[in-house]
């Protein structure tokens, strides 16, 4: 495929594909990324196959510098160990690699995300002891959200997932606003980017509230507001995400096809 052809916007793609492509683009080559499973893993692997071949993928199962040739089906997929620069024990991942703030980007998903980028993957409902829905729990997320230099969140946007305030703070974003991370002593910058199937949100530098900064092609701002559980602020200079290129879509589809 010629360079020109591959950079051409693709004809048809799904909103999930747009989300994965937008998330992948956010990852800079040569940086290190602590990869959660699911949407983050798809995006990180796509980045490594497109513009960021030297992206260092770190999985909590102990795989440093994994270079999987297909999408791993779990954070402990054998393909991660087979292709890693080093396989280490799980305590070492958290203590020697994550905790000291060595990792550039923590890439997470969420069941619920709130106005300040706090993440809930524990319980839906007001009563922890008697929840409406019992979610999987914390996993590595609280410390990924605390310690990585920056956090990116990739999550499908809806009123169920984008709420005014999460039912349970599993992983701290920007707390209840400015200065909260500093007060808690959390070393990383927290969520600086939230990529959804509708657009991109970033925290306002002053209020730390998530603000819509980009919409994906074909998405109207009203649709994003309708999928947001708080009174969404839209950036003055709202951008529009460039469509996926053919090269990006081809790489993404090859990746997901190889995993089916």
């Amino acid at each position, binding site marked *: 495929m010629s360079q020109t052809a591959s950079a051409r916007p693709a004809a048809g793609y799904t909103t999930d594909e747009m989300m994965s492509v937008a998330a992948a683009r956010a990852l800079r080559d040569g940086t290190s990324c602590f990869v959660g*499973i*699911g949407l983050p893993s798809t995006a990180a692997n796509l980045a490594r196959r497109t513009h960021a071949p030297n992206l260092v993928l770190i999985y*909590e*199962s*102990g*795989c440093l510098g994994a270079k999987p040739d297909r999408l791993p*089906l*779990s*954070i*402990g*997929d*054998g393909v*991660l*160990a*087979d292709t890693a620069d080093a*396989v280490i*024990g*799980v*305590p070492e*991942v*958290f*203590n020697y690699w*994550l*905790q000291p703030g060595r990792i550039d980007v923590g890439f997470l998903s969420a069941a619920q995300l709130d106005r300040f980028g706090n993440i809930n993957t*524990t319980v839906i409902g007001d009563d*922890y002891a*008697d*929840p409406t829905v*019992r979610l*999987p*729990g*914390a*996993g*590595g*997320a*609280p*410390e990924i959200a*605390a*310690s990585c230099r920056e956090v990116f969140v990739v999550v499908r946007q809806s009123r169920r997932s984008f709420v005014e305030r999460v039912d*349970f*703070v*599993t*992983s*701290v974003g920007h*707390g209840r606003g400015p200065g*909260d*991370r500093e007060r*808690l*002593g*959390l*070393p990383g910058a927290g969520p600086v980017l939230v990529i959804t199937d509708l657009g991109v949100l970033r925290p306002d530098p002053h209020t730390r509230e998530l603000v819509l900064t980009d919409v994906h092609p074909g998405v109207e701002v009203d649709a994003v507001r309708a999928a947001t559980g708080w009174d969404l602020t839209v950036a003055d200079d709202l951008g529009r995400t460039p469509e996926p290129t053919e090269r990006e879509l081809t790489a993404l589809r090859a990746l997901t096809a190889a995993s089916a």
Partner: protein
Amino acid sequence: MARILSLADAVGEVVHDGDTVALEGFTHLIPFAAGHEIIRQGRRDLTLVRMTPDLIYDQLIGAGCARKLVFSWGGNPGVGSLHRFRDAVQNGWPVPLEIEEHSHAGMANRYVAGASGLPFAVLRGYTGTDLPAHNPNIKQITCPFTGETLTAVPALNPDTTIVHAQQADPAGNVQVWGITGVHKEAVLAAKRSLVTVEEIVDELRPRPGAMVLPGWAVTVVAEAPRGAHPSYAQGYYDRDNDYYQAWDAIGRDRDAFRDWLTETVFNNTATAGGGTR
């Protein structure tokens, strides 16, 4: 030197009603065969400990073996929820299940403290989250040099830890390669340990990336070929992803689960991991 026993004898020796038992294996090398043997032996009132309770604990919980679960992430990876776990937490079926919930970093460090003979571990963790409000086993501690506040979690010292590995030699020295997770820490933290292995070989051949657990640090070893199925054993077999998919329907329904228990666990005294395929 570890003693080498049959799987049934090994489980019978190391797992008793009321014990705190950790079955570990981080996606890789999950000791399903031993878990099924615990169900067959009818153990009750266990406190089950595991970073990632997935199908194996869904099965033990559904079979009524557990009264408490200590964990950091409970789900069917890539598929969805653990329905038996939810049914126990939300409806007390077949018996009520108490939970104690941590993060991975917290659990990993609890094992490290346990393996190290320390009563607690220090980490930067849980800060600002709602987890400490629901878990008295997450406390604060002050650095005696800088005055900084950090988090402390108590050591985990299970009565028994069970893990699966690729190989052991006749002296019970165990070799594990690929993702080794918290195998070493969980075994060393426990009062007793059982390592099930794919095979017992005459001599362990050193391999890149392998970790060796000396036989004198393990209580018993049992041969259990395919004992990690439906998870995987690097160098032996791949993950049975269809099993994980199929589990969703089985786990979702009490009757389907009871049928599965009868057919796959109770009518199957083989040492294998109990495949449904």
